[in-house]
């Protein structure tokens, strides 16, 4: 395949940045999107240019490191995949592909396609945990049975990989799907109940402070989420938040 790539280049956080055109040829449909970028970078290095910076690590869809806004969609045109699992067979010979970073106020650009998602970490520091010490002197794991449905739902919420596609897809740059997933995981388990009130209040407060927008129930986040995290998690977080606010 021969392709034209239009890629966002930005030297650093202070640079203005611009789209730059690149031609690339002999791309196999079996390549992943990131492998296609590897080929481009090899070309750039060999011709004395600087390669395009992009985030990636596990390349099997689980670490949540890869990002990229491709032709106007987070993680590109395929559904239920991260960029590392997006394959070039999703494109046609002669295509022009637009590649941009995940844009959101709370995700400042570091360089080219790399953004800073540490705001997600800070939301977790505010309450994304159960306060149990790590000594191992806890009660036997089977001492508290958990309804299978709740356990399964908690697991589904917990499969969020923290990639930020929800934020990038949202017209308001809201982080409600991400935070909702984390709140839900603990809200559904008996272990998380004791500090449920503080957790949701603290996490939402931090989310607002980080500069994420509000949720207007557009649902783009759910559509673009590579792990199929459901909007139900936002609803559950809202219920938890309301209950906590009334208590508080």
């Amino acid at each position, binding site marked *: 395949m021969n392709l034209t790539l239009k890629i966002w280049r930005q*030297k650093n956080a202070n640079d203005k940045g611009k789209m730059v055109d690149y031609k690339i040829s002999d791309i*196999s449909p*079996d*390549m*992943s999107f*990131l*492998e296609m970028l*590897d080929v481009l970078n*090899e070309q*750039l*290095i*060999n011709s*004395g240019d*600087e*390669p395009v*910076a992009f*985030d*990636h*690590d*596990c*390349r*099997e*869809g*689980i*670490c*949540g*490191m890869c990002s990229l806004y491709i032709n106007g969609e987070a993680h590109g045109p*395929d559904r239920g995949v991260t960029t590392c*699992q997006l*394959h070039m067979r999703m494109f046609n010979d002669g295509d022009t592909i637009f590649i941009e970073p995940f844009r959101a106020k709370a995700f400042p650009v570091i*360089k080219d396609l790399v953004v800073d998602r540490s705001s997600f*970490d800070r939301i*977790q*520091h505010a*309450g*994304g*945990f*159960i*306060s*149990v010490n*790590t*000594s*191992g002197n*806890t*009660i036997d*794991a*089977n001492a508290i*049975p*958990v309804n*299978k449905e709740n*356990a*399964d739902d*908690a*697991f589904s919420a*917990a*499969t969020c990989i*923290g990639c930020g596609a929800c934020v990038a897809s949202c017209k308001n740059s809201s982080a409600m799907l991400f935070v909702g997933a984390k709140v839900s*995981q603990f809200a559904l*388990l008996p*272990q998380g109940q004791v500090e449920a009130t503080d957790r949701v209040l603290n996490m939402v407060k931090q989310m607002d402070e980080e500069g994420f927008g509000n949720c207007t129930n557009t649902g783009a986040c759910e559509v673009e989420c590579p792990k199929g995290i459901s909007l139900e998690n936002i609803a559950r977080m809202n219920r938890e938040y309301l209950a906590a606010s009334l208590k508080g």
Partner: protein
Amino acid sequence: MALDSKIPQGPIADKWTNYKNHIDLVNPANKRNIDVIVVGTGLAGGSAAATLAELGYNVKAFCFQDSPRRAHSIAAQGGINAAKNYQGDGDSTYRLFYDTVKGGDYRSREANVYRLAEVSANIIDQCVAQGVPFAREYGGLLDNRSFGGVLVSRTFYAAGQTGQQLLLGAYSAMNRQIGRGKIKMYNRHEMLDVVKVDGKARGIITRNLITGEIERHSAHAVVLGTGGYGNVFFLSTNAMGSNVTAAWKAHKRGAYFANPCYTQIHPTCIPVSGDHQSKLTLMSESLRNDGRIWVPKHMKDVEAIKAGTLKPKDLAEEDRDYYLERRYPAFGNLVPRDVASRAAKERCDAGYGVNATGEAVFLDFASAIERYGKEQATVRHLDVNDAALVKKLGQEVVKNKYGNLFQMYEKIVDQDPYNTPMMIYPAVHYTMGGVWVDYNLMTTVPGLYCIGEANFSDHGANRLGASALMQGLADGYFVLPYTIGDYLSNDIRTGPISTDSKEFEEAEKEVREKIEFFVTNKGQHSVDYFHKRLGKIMWNKVGMSRNVQGLTEAISEIKALRAQFWKEVSVPGSSDELNEELAKAGRVADFLELGELFAKDALHREESAGGHFREDAVELDGEQKGEAKRDDENFAYVAAWEYKGEPSDAILHKEQLEFNDIELKQRSYK
């Protein structure tokens, strides 16, 4: 220096308890005056950082990713073992200990493995308390499954994403401590050297990967939880950033490197599709519970399948060679990883590989789909002779068990595994070798600890499934927090460690010089060019099977490649910015040294053990004819290498392994 494993005296079942009763403790008020550095935030590093902070030490944690949550432990799929015996099927601490030592081909340290088995049950309690959503049964209790090489169901799991859930558990424990100010977290930082003051590890030199700033960090002790070095092969199931740099720098500062040639080759990975490939994808070993592995019996069918004129599912049953079931009737498709991998290679080397490159075998779910379908039809009182119905019902069952894996396969290969057999081939997965540690998990450098995959102690020459997660968390949550306290009790009067000493200055200078070299050297080849070439040498000559000639060639080829690298490598960009090529250059430089030591270690070990198959160490006759031959008389030791400049000058130290509680036996899966 003689190796002292510091294994406590007394019966194996009492060693850990006695040890804990007699070590020195640090008073809580004094812990506040002690700093500990933890490098790496996967299962081992993350759990260690959280627990040390919980105990009251001041922890500085470092990872090269943008968040600890992305450490590669997150990619582990299958599960975590624990001797809970919830199923009442006869499991016990001893049995987990026994299986692990046997599965490791008797090349691990008995006392460490027993301790691992002993604390395993606590791990599950701890993780559940932290909100890790393990799979449950309808009664609300935890579910278990079984894994290769084992006769009990002791594996706890969270669908095919157990590593993710356990890592997020450790990450949340870290978050709590970061929120309390007890852990200072340094994301996107890479450790580039260990600093020793008066012979003790007292700090590290790091590079901030965003700004390029070189920083000095001091502490009373340094812990490495930096994972394995499988990326020395370029293609592996490891994350792209996984590297050996921290462990290798520790080695250069005096930490012995043990059994570098012990690599686990995982049998069920998606095969390589072309030269563009950047990494390999693992399909969980749990697939072998239901998938049958085969290649065609006749060469004409191999060719027809390759040419696309014959669909694999149309090949008659009698024309298929279910080679694992043929060779190993007792364990069949569930033989341990090293055995399954070698058998696949044997068939492909003989020309029976089924894809374009000739390096793939089939993993077929057709019989499982039919079996489950018939079962479901019977249960629901439907027609068991309705083939379409049976297939549909069977596919539903298989989807419930392995759906996420099947979907992943389909996305990558563009074939529907419900309707055509998957293609798989072995790939480099996990390294059992690593930094040598004693029973305290301390390296040969006082105050420098090494935990998880980065150390060598618990898995021997081959790792059983679901035991890596167990070791990472055992080390981090339950072992290191005790053993490091014993060491730190001597440091309560030391006070803060200055980073102005000449040792820090010199270490920083060396780091800077290397970085300066890379960004000013105007060579003609990219870093990847060298990494790929190293990978090819490693895979072809130091990979699944090895011989004297190949290993000797590999050593001189790696040496030559390294010399070329230092002349011709090209790193664009500057050192004071985010520069992925610069970071990679440093890592590949270390792989080029480790690779040679790896081959040297493989050359000296004239036996087959675990994933390490020496072509001249093979059973010649009897029931085990053609199988790997271990040599306990001459090689029942840990090979610990001391750095002396060039890898070829490394000096071998032997830690003789003693087996007092387990009899060394031939591993037979016939």
